[in-house]
């Protein structure tokens, strides 16, 4: 369930915490395992992480369902997380989200048919002076316009 490579990455995180506090690494461990499994967590992968960190399955499930950055349904290869909070809203985020939805032919929360892209509306990403903005995977894109969005999205593969 957890690859050797993933275990190595998880071990790196475990080292940051005091002896016996390896469950501190659960948030990263879930991300690492998620990344290896189509960007998605399953009941079994959560249990596997819990077992690896020697914590109850339900405790790992609590974490996996509390935080936003875990997916429990199929998502695209690229996840566009579009901020729709106040500063971005004031700068036209809603129209741009609509634009993106039309362009991709999906609603927020859905995945494109080819499985390439999914779109999520999210709360403030802490880049409000660059509003409107979104995040694709690890990267922030700020001061978005419809044209800019087209360019960025067209570049995804």
């Amino acid at each position, binding site marked *: 369930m957890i690859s050797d490579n993933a275990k190595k990455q998880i071990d790196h995180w475990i080292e*940051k*915490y*005091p002896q016996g*506090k390896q*469950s*501190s*690494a*659960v*948030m*990263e461990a*879930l*991300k690492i395992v998620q990344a290896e499994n189509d960007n998605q967590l399953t009941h079994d992968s959560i249990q596997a992480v819990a077992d690896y*960190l020697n*914590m109850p399955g339900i*405790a790992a499930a*609590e*974490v996996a369902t*509390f*935080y*936003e*950055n*875990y997916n429990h349904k199929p998502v695209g290869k690229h996840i566009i*997380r579009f901020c*729709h*909070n*106040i*500063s971005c*809203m*004031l*700068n036209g985020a809603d129209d741009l989200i609509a634009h993106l939805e039309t362009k991709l032919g999906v609603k927020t929360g859905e995945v494109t048919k080819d499985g390439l892209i999914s779109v999520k509306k999210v*709360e*403030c*990403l*802490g*880049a*409000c*002076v*660059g*509003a409107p903005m979104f*995040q694709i995977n*690890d*990267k*922030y894109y700020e001061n978005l316009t419809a044209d800019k969005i087209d360019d960025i999205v067209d570049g995804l593969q």
Partner: protein
Amino acid sequence: MNEVCFKNLDKDQCWSLETYEASGGYSTWRKILKGEYTPDQIINELKASGLRGRGGAGFPTGLKWSFMPRNAQGQKYIVCNSDEGEPGTCKDRDILRFNPHAVIEGMAIGSFVMNATVGYNYIRGEFIEPFNRFEGALKEAYSAGLLGKNINDTDVSFDLHAHLGAGAYICGEETALLESIEGKKGQPRFKPPFPANVGLFGRPTTINNTESFASVPDIMINGGQWFADLGVENSGGTKLFSVSGHVNNPANFEVSMGMPFSELLELAGGMRNGAKLKAVIPGGSSTPVLTAEAAMGMTMDYDGIDKAGSMLGAGSVIVMDDSTCMVEALTRLAHFYYDESCGQCTPCREGTGWLYRVLKRIMDGKGKADDIELLLGVQEKIMGNTICALGDAAAMPVESFLRNFREEFEYYIEHKKSMVKG
């Protein structure tokens, strides 16, 4: 402008150790390693500086550090709060990206003062670029022999690690943050006990905001009085203001405390398209909204904003022009708190959803005549009754939007459409 956290902003590779050291960086830390400082001296400088916590609550940093039982047996921790998630706030991201060593040195100084030999910087999960910057800086500091156990063969040890969040605004609340580092859901703890007594892994812990820590090295270089003099009474120093919304040049500005709001607005290029200022949220989404009039007469410091009827908070200035529908704006904020409530305590779990649903109903044209009273009643029932301040944060905007812009809500309920947008 840009005298403390941002003083190297215009330099090449401003985040590098080299740049940092060239402007006096790590000089205090090196002095500490040479035994030239006592913890009390540092606390006194901090107290003189008037530095108040930049995470929102504005608690005097020197005082907070003095509360730590530094001589207590066993491990103690120092934790930096880089969870930055309050709508309108985006300053810590830039500190991490552009001046990570100031955060490291500030934490190191704190670790010495409080005898906390291990530190964590909790960085919000989405901040991958800032996280990488910070990790890079950590690596530099470790290789330069500035961090680790028994640094330079002294009895001073400090190990610092970055911890990444995974998407939850509530982890910015300091005890939720500690739970999160412990690998749990970010549910705030009840207080007392306070983290200074029972904190991370049950050990005494001090938590400060990124900007608070990043301000410490320069205070130590130039002296507490210098910092205090940069600002005004009760609000020492400079402050990073994230100015966003309907302005021409939205950005983070490090300016002296006490600057008139009107000047800050000018710095941000003035109102976009010359539109009329309608409202300002001066300290992040949790702080009460102000009318244009109140805002224009206000100075940007703790007392000044307080007098105007709001709070400095995290210094996140959200500017709204007269095209803004206040019903829509409040609904968006209400959705945020509804979405981000951790759910453990009854008033917040049940109340934030109630507030949002009533507002949504009004937006959907199904508002009822007594909805305004209902909203006021619900926010009042949340206020003060919850474990952490998210409850209050969810309540406050509702009260202030309704107080300052009540007619817009009445109009929306009656006409089933926005007074502003039609």
